[in-house]
């Protein structure tokens, strides 16, 4: 199959959607910019016209609200936030409005809006230009949240998100933009709520989210070299998340590492750890380990960035520790 980059896969999804469905349009900051969205939207305005690809003033709240309003009128907008940090100005239209309308009006109306937010960090950008805030939105009923880690999913989840009749937060991470993978041409959807097993294994389960799913795959390979046979799951979809798949894996391995690219407290990793610790209580042989960002803002200086962000090495260490505990207990 064709090898396509994550960034290119996102662009393809947009192009497919814009071609196929007149209800789809894009709105947000940077859509006419040569650099704002990396190459994920390169020349998309030229291809589809600036009527349907609308760059905006620096007005996150009203722009997001306008997308929600257009969705309430039956359009399928994708509203673009070039950084998740900026989207904090648009929490009201997302949380108070988009998430609630279907419920309030008892299903008489739906809000088919996709809110695309980019995690854009590293490079000494600092605390206000680095946040991965998916857990804040996972907490909110009425919102779906997806975070692809591969080019295939980047395309398929965006298509699924736009086809969904509910507000979906689609979060991509710039650290993944150059990654290449197999991507079919044409339109296909990746079901929201389904996780993907990236590596089959029996010793320990590793659930990765977004960028950390890629690191988890990398960790899986390193662990294999050490003789540890991990099962690596890319969660892909955070709300709803594929509890069944994760539990089935933990049932087999009895051990779980959750690797998330966001903060620890009340993070996505907390929810998964809590759920699996509860529903998988009988199977767990050791405590679930969370590999997440410390409860600390992002620093700038490059060495502190290195100390701050988590990588495959942290996952490897966590998995090794768990397997060691089990082996220790088994031998005891």
């Amino acid at each position, binding site marked *: 199959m064709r090898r396509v980059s994550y960034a290119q896969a996102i662009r393809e999804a947009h192009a497919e959607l814009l071609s196929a469905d007149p209800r789809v349009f894009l709105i947000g900051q940077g859509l006419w910019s040569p650099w704002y969205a990396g190459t994920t939207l390169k020349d998309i305005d030229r291809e589809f016209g600036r009527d349907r690809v609308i760059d905006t003033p620096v007005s996150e709240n009203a722009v997001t609200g306008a997308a929600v*309003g257009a969705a309430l009128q039956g359009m399928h907008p994708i509203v673009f936030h070039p950084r998740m940090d900026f989207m904090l100005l648009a929490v009201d239209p997302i949380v108070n409005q988009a998430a609630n309308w279907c419920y309030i009006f008892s299903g008489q109306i739906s809000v088919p809006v996709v809110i695309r937010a980019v995690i854009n960090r590293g490079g000494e950008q600092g605390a206000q230009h680095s946040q991965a805030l998916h857990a804040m939105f996972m907490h909110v009923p009425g919102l779906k949240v997806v975070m692809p880690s591969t080019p295939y999913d980047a395309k398929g989840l965006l298509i699924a998100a736009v086809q969904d009749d509910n507000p979906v937060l689609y979060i991509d991470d710039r650290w993944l933009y150059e990654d290449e993978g197999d991507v079919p041409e044409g339109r296909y959807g990746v079901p929201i709520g389904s996780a993907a097993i990236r590596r089959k294994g029996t010793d320990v389960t590793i659930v990765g989210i977004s960028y950390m799913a890629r690191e988890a795959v990398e960790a899986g390979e390193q662990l294999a070299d050490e003789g540890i046979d991990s099962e690596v799951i890319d969660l892909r979809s955070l709300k709803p998340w594929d509890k069944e798949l994760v539990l089935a894996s933990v049932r087999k391995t009895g051990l779980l590492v959750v690797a998330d690219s966001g903060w620890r407290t009340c993070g996505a990793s907390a929810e998964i750890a809590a759920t699996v610790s509860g529903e998988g209580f009988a199977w767990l042989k050791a405590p679930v380990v969370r590999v997440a960002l410390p409860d600390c803002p992002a620093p700038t200086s490059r060495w502190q960035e290195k100390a701050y962000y988590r990588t495959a090495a942290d996952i490897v260490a966590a998995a090794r520790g768990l397997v060691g505990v089990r082996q220790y207990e088994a031998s005891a």
Partner: protein
Amino acid sequence: MASKCHLVEAESAEARQIAALESAVSRDGIAGLLLEMYSTMLRIRVFEEQVAALVEAGEIKTPCHLYIGQEAVATGVCAALEVSDTIWGNHRSHGHYLAKGGDSCTMMAEIFGKKTGCCKGRGGSMHLFSKEVGILGTVPIVAGTVPLAVGAALAAKLRRDGSVSVAFFGDGTLDEGHVHESLNLAALYRLPVVFVCENNFYASHMQLLERRVKDNLHQAGEFFGVPGVREDGNDVVAVYEAARGAVERARSGDGPSLLEFRTFRWRGHVGPSWDTDVGVKRRDELKDWLPKDPIARARTRLLELGAGMEALERVENSARDDAQFAVSFARRSPYPGQDAVLDHVFACSEGGPRCEG
């Protein structure tokens, strides 16, 4: 227009007579229209007086923000709209709902929290909806629907469907920054939206000049290129005419406008009281405004225009009947089931769990 449930459930001789009268005078220009608007205003007034009484009686529990005193605004604006145009409201939207043609029975049932309500008991007074007649939604986060109305106008422009959207909001709403962002977007994209600011001089307990230095709300859009008009919000004909101009402008592609209608709410910010009893010093203002009752003024004008007493009385009786029918409809209706509480968190289409109800 009498409410659906009224027609269905009553079909009284009186109702039919009113309808005949309405269509008869509708040829006579403003007199016909004024009679219609008089009827709408009265229906709002009577409906809300009912609500006030029922809140006092403890039968209604949901917080009700009464529109009494402001009826001319919703009525005049909606008279300038087509069914396919949309309106977007706020916490104080009973009047918007009725004026746009919403059914009084389903609104009353909603206020009662009943399953037959326009949100099936999920909204109460502060969340109203009736898609068929373009009531796209009223919700109580201040300014919440203003960007949504802009988005609806954007959808209309993209689809070229010729519809106009109207955002109803109060003077306090212009304190919120994203309303200004919305004005800018509307001007920039030349959207078919009308911003209707109902300046009743208060945001809950805070008088306009406690929240800003100038009394100049019609100028809110100037900085962004949205023209503004100030009108007497208690003169339903003046409201109608200002709205008609703005709606025509929007529909013909010339972009948004902002209308400031100066008016006054008679009752308290929320509930049936008159506010004066809880320490807000509105007494003098209220004294000035009560004689400007938009309904009494319309009535006087109708009489001047030659409407007969009898015709007016019929309209008045009909409004009363309508509200009473609504109450009895609401009373007779069942509550939604407790087991349905988790329904509709997500839209059905994609088959998630528990979307039906």
